């Protein structure tokens, strides 16, 4: 197995040197991930060649002061469908703040680049879309929260809005708040003394006050004109209990001619919050990324830390993690199956799925103490073992569950009115999957057998693989069937895992100290960790990337540790890429079908807006 993996990565590296005609500088290589630095010309040749060979750009992120570098370093993660290794091209942007865009070759790069631009202030030349992404107009110009110079804290936004004067020159500028110019000028004069350097761009905290009164760039939606074309703005506040998102439809009558989505209304700054924290503290942050992907994101983060630090994970912990991940998948997908039926007004079909989902939440609580499976994961294993009595209950629970589920699904599939609504609605073409880096049930329903558990097994999935489920239609009905298949496969997987559950510890550092209460909790980097745990992260520097298959698709986690503390934590959830599919899926459909298309894709708003 390892030999083969090593060959995979060697093959990939030799491909790269063929593509670029230069010998790549290998910064770091593991069995299934390699960090490669190329010359600028080599990078551009490589990007073109990778796009031609159907590689997806699965992630693009930036780090400041990476290893020995001083400026910004960009990481382009590429992966080819069906192959395990991830190729990360490392590109130094230095302090120039200008690099060329790859969005022409990799459409998925567009959002990535806009995200980096907002976070770090790098400009991507040649990009077809240079609007802001997660920083809306309310953020001042020149504010880039992920720069190290910005110390996390409140932004003086109120004052900024009121002011109209450019620091130093004292020239009155016209802004939206024209009425209180006099007061604003005073405010500006007062601040002039406080902040001298008017043009500095680096110290972001000051930038907020320097660029007084400059409202953020105006966000322009695509303008489509023509006879009978009109726009329907929907959101960001919706009826019902859902998250905020703005949808701008251009329609001719009922058929949708174009859709533009705008998200990121609730930016929480998770990546910034992670900076400087110990890995064990960060697990809670990872769990907070998206409610029904808590376990997946926690495992993604923990695995990344374990890989970076070389912490072994006991077999039992791996297997229990897989059980929890599959439980999460089942309850999440049950919600989708119910939601899709509700959105076509068929509550009778939806209700058994909702009942099963609630029963699962109760099982989750018995197993872990949390309905959303939170508070279990930690780097090196699990925080606590799952009691034998609760595990034993699972098999009979799922036997009954499976019968109810099958009869509920049968009822859905035997309703012609439901099928009529689902079939041919909201087609995602197969050709979109690679360029937009679509993953999860969405990609599977469009004919791509993309599953990280199969293609790049992690944890217990090396031994317990789920069966594949693929449909070719790409429509809502295909996604409905794929999601039901996924649930069935997860149930089988849970069954096998329970049968072959190994005994032993659930935390690597805890092998000899079973009696000690403090055991696993002592992962913190501070001096208080008195144990001689073999798996401590303290003082270690390193970085690693992991991919996990969350219910919605592949999530990417990249952790860079500096002296045992998280220096940069990057998460790219499946939703971040999958959201872009909706703009294509709705074309030609009618407006009343949008809700069911949206629900069938079921992307997370929170998972996109970190």
């Amino acid at each position, binding site marked *: 197995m390892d030999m083969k993996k090593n060959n995979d990565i060697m093959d990939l590296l030799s491909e790269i040197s063929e593509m670029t005609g230069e010998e790549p500088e290998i910064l770091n290589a593991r069995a299934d991930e390699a960090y490669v630095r190329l010359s600028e010309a080599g990078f551009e040749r490589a990007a073109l060649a990778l796009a031609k060979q159907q590689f997806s750009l699965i992630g693009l992120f930036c780090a400041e002061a990476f290893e020995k570098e001083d400026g910004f370093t960009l990481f382009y993660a590429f992966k080819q469908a069906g192959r395990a290794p991830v190729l990360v091209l490392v590109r130094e942007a230095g302090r120039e703040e200008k690099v060329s865009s790859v969005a022409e070759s990799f459409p998925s790069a567009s959002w990535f680049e806009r995200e980096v631009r907002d976070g770090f202030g790098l400009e991507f030349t040649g990009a077809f879309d240079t609007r802001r992404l997660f920083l809306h107009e309310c953020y001042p110009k020149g504010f880039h929260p992920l720069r190290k110079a910005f110390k996390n804290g409140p932004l003086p936004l109120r004052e900024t809005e009121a002011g109209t004067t450019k620091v130093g020159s004292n020239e009155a500028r016209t802004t939206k708040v024209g009425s209180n110019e006099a007061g604003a000028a005073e405010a500006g004069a007062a601040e002039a003394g406080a902040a001298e350097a008017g043009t500095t761009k680096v110290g972001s905290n000051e930038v907020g006050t320097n660029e007084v009164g400059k409202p953020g760039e105006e966000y322009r939606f695509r303008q489509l004109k023509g006879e009978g074309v009109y726009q*329907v703005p929907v959101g960001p506040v919706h*009826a019902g209990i859902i998250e905020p998102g703005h949808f701008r439809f251009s329609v001719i009558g009922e058929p949708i001619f174009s859709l533009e989505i705008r998200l990121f209304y609730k930016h929480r700054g998770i990546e910034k919050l992670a900076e400087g924290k110990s890995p064990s503290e960060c697990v809670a942050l990872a769990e907070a990324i998206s409610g029904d992907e808590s376990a997946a994101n926690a495992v993604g983060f923990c695995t990344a830390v374990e890989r970076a630090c070389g912490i072994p994970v006991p077999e039992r912990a791996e297997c229990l993690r897989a059980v929890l991940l599959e439980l999460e998948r089942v309850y999440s997908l049950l919600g989708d199956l119910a939601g899709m039926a509700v959105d076509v*007004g*068929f509550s*009778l079909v939806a209700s058994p799925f909702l009942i099963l989902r609630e029963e699962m939440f109760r099982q989750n609580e018995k197993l872990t103490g949390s309905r959303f499976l939170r508070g279990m994961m930690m780097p090196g294993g699990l925080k606590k073992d799952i009691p034998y009595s609760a595990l034993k209950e699972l098999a009979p629970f799922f036997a009954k569950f499976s019968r109810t589920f099958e009869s509920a699904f049968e009822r859905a599939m035997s309703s012609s009115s439901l099928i009529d609504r689902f079939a041919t609605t909201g087609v995602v073409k197969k050709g979109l999957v690679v360029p937009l880096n679509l993953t999860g049930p969405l990609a599977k329903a469009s004919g791509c057998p993309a599953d990280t558990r199969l293609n790049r097994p992690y944890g217990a999935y090396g031994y317990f693989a789920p069966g594949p489920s693929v449909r070719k239609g790409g429509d809502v009905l295909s996604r409905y069937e794929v999601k039901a298949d996924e649930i069935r496969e997860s149930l089988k997987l849970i069954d096998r895992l329970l049968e072959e559950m190994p005994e032993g510890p659930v935390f690597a550092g805890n092998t000899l100290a079973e009696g000690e209460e403090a055991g696993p909790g002592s992962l913190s980097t501070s001096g208080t960790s008195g144990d001689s745990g073999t798996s401590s992260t303290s003082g270690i520097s390193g970085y690693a990337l992991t991919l996990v298959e969350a219910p919605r698709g592949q999530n990417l986690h990249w952790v860079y540790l500096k002296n045992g503390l998280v220096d940069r934590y990057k998460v790219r959830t499946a939703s971040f890429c999958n959201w872009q599919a909706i703009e294509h899926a709705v074309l030609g459909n009618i407006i009343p079908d949008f*809700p069911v298309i949206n629900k069938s894709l079921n992307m997370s708003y929170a998972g996109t807006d970190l």
Partner: protein
Amino acid sequence: MNTSFLLFALLNPAFALLAASLYMALIRKVKAQAQGRKGPGLFQAYYDLRKLMHKEVIYSPVSSGIMRFTPYLNLAALLVCSLFVPLVFVPEPAGGFGNVIVFLYLLALERFFTALCGLDAGSAFGGMGSSRSMSLAAVIEPTMVVAFAALAFVLKSLNLHEMFALTAGSLLPVSPTLVLVSISLFIILIVETGRLPVDNPATHLELTMINEAMVLEQSGKNLALLELAHALKQLLLMGVLINTILPVGLSTEANAGKIAVSALSFLLKAGALAVVIGLFESSLAKMRLFRLPAFYMMAFFFSALTILIEVFA
């Protein structure tokens, strides 16, 4: 005017107004039970009305008088309609009351002002609802005309009071063709009250709404009046259907005992119909918007068939 009609004019609208909300709640209850939920109590619809009456009314700054008077106009139109459909007893005909054509126009008036009201607030959803409602009205209105024409053909009158005087009290439909007309009337009832598979009254998804979208901007007392008008419309259409297919218990005499029997039997029959509607709604997904005319065509077909049978048989 005769004393029988005066008594009817007092009792029938009052009875209809009081009973209307009960069936909104009952249908909701049946649907909830079908889904395995308990559902709200039968008086919830009344509590909701009381709550709305006490709430503040908020108008969009771009709205005109239409938003303000439509609720009153709609309820008034439906109250007049309630003089046309005998529920407590069938009075002796008086003037134009009971005329089928006036009845249909009163319903059209209500629909027209509801659609205007949707446009008036200037929100994206209201306009969408109005445009959908009007496009569909172009199909359902001729269907309604044909269905009521079929009813008139079978019962040999253009006056609802005369028609139902003919059917009143019989255990079975007086003519087998009335069964066909009843299918049409049931579809019209579903369409006119915005129920599944045409429109989902329980949805929060504005983009899929038809009826609800038009009253989305209404609030407080105005919303209460519109909801009451809607419930009244449902009750009256239920009344037409019940008097056509199952007129047992309905009396033509205006004495206290007969009125009580009529009213009580109507309450029971309407309860049974509400259960049927609730189960029907539960058994279907909402149809695609552009497939709805096919559903209306079924009503059209059964009514046209009735007319053909009546003419040639």
